[in-house]
């Protein structure tokens, strides 16, 4: 039996109306914009050689913005699903004659909606999968998620521009107002009222956020049943990539380990005991990962600036931080001058009073304020002044 293709007029529910779409769309637009802006912040923070250096303060800045990224993206899931449900009849809207002015405009408008819907679903699906470190696709996550973010925000702005008169009319009148109804809309609801649908959508959004945000909002850890992290791990701290996965296990445990600090021809080599004999500082700083989890910890180690003084590195030197890891894209990162000068930037030997766990970067790791987790290099074996 073939199902008949519906027409726009086949949908008669009072809930599929611009009065509801505009109200959910307003929050969806806000959430998408927050996700877009906080995503830009993350790209800026990860661009290690950008001409405007990323600031080192506040130390919790990256944690906050990336927490917002996770929360706003998660909030979009129920908002987008209900929004798409309310506008579903539009998919079956009759097309005007294709070669008229109206026809061309309609094709362009519907084309931009197709891009918007495709980009929105893509961003939510790829973002949430990334937080679970699950990559069932053939594209490279970071550049593609970034490119499609621009498609999504561009299509969103265009969509709001096209629909602005309808949005204004819808938001300016009561949600149960019938002025914007499609022809054939029922006069009464079979179940939920429009107000009821809106309230339900807000509740669903709240549930989605509470179920996820514990990965980054510490007090929610116990109730976030769908969070990809629960704050637990060796030394009370989750691990993004283990020593085994990074291929650092053997080199990191080698008793012959030496940290090399290099500035041109001058080099200094220090064993872990030498490092521990230097004056130590203790700082409470968060690890905040681009995958949307974060946790705070108390780190003890040697300020990177003190180490650079051993080879007379000039102030504001950019430093190449090199790891023992043999796998992964971040074996070598750049620590910009503003970070290497900051007294809070440590080469940490301990966390919460214990020697670092192998998975947290033993024998020593970088920890700097307001810095993406992927750039808090673990298993550091060389600090080199970039000429």
């Amino acid at each position: 039996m073939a199902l008949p293709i519906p027409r726009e007029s086949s949908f008669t529910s009072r809930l599929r109306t611009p009065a509801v779409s505009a109200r959910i769309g307003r929050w969806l637009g806000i959430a998408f914009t927050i996700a877009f802006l906080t995503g830009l912040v993350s790209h800026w923070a990860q661009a290690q050689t950008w001409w405007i250096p990323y600031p080192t303060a506040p130390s919790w800045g990256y944690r906050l913005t990336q927490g917002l990224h996770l929360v706003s993206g998660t909030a979009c899931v129920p908002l987008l699903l209900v929004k798409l449900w309310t506008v579903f009849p539009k998919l079956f809207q009759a097309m005007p004659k294709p070669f008229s002015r109206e026809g061309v405009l309609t094709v362009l408008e519907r084309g931009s909606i197709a891009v918007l819907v495709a980009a929105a679903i893509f961003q939510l699906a790829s973002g949430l999968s990334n937080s679970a470190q699950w990559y069932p696709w053939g594209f490279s996550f970071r550049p593609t998620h970034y490119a499609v973010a621009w498609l999504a925000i561009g299509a969103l702005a265009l969509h709001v521009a096209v629909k602005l008169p309808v949005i204004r009319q819808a938001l300016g009148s009561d949600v149960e107002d019938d002025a914007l109804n499609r022809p054939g809309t029922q006069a009464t609801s079979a179940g939920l009222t429009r107000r009821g649908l809106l309230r339900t959508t807000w509740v669903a959004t709240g549930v989605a956020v509470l179920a996820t945000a514990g990965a980054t909002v510490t007090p929610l850890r116990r109730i976030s049943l769908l969070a990809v992290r629960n704050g637990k791990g060796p030394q009370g701290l989750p691990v993004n990539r283990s020593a085994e996965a990074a291929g650092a296990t053997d080199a990191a445990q080698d008793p012959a380990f030496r940290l090399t600090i290099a500035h041109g021809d001058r080099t200094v080599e220090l064993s872990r005991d030498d490092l521990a004999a230097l004056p130590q500082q203790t700082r409470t700083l968060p690890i905040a990962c681009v995958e949307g989890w974060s946790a705070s910890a108390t780190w003890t180690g040697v300020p990177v600036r003190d180490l650079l003084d051993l080879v007379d590195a000039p102030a504001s030197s950019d430093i190449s931080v090199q790891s023992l890891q043999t796998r992964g894209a971040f074996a070598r990162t750049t620590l910009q001058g503003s970070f290497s000068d900051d007294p809070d930037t440590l080469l940490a030997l301990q966390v919460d009073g214990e020697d670092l766990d192998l998975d947290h970067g033993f024998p020593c790791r970088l920890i700097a304020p307001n810095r993406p987790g992927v750039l808090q290099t673990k298993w550091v074996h060389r600090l080199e002044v970039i000429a």
Partner: protein
Amino acid sequence: MITRLSLGAVGLAGLAYGAWLLLGTGWSNIVAAVEWLAGGVLLHDGVVAPLSIVVAALALRVVPSSVRARVAAAAIVIGTTATQALPLFDRPGAKPDNPTLLPRDYVTGWLVIVALVVVVSAALVLLDRVRARRS
């Protein structure tokens, strides 16, 4: 009108920049991205949306009108959290060397959320009845 035109121009500029960035990622990356872009729309328009219509049509036949609103609300919360929870059920990104990633049992977690929604909805139905009797 100026608001609309400038917003539209900003939108077109964003679209153009996004397309340019995507084109710069290389042919095989573009093909894979387009597959997933189109796949998401097809999955929604071809499976999720029709499924919601079928479920609603069936529910209209069996659920008495006095509790329909509460049942619909519960279904929306359960359905939207299911979209979020389903991909985690099998813990597909889990790695044996890193127990701190995906540390929970997500099937149980989602069932707890479902149970909470059912209990709250049932309580609201009872409240509706008490109120109806009083008035």
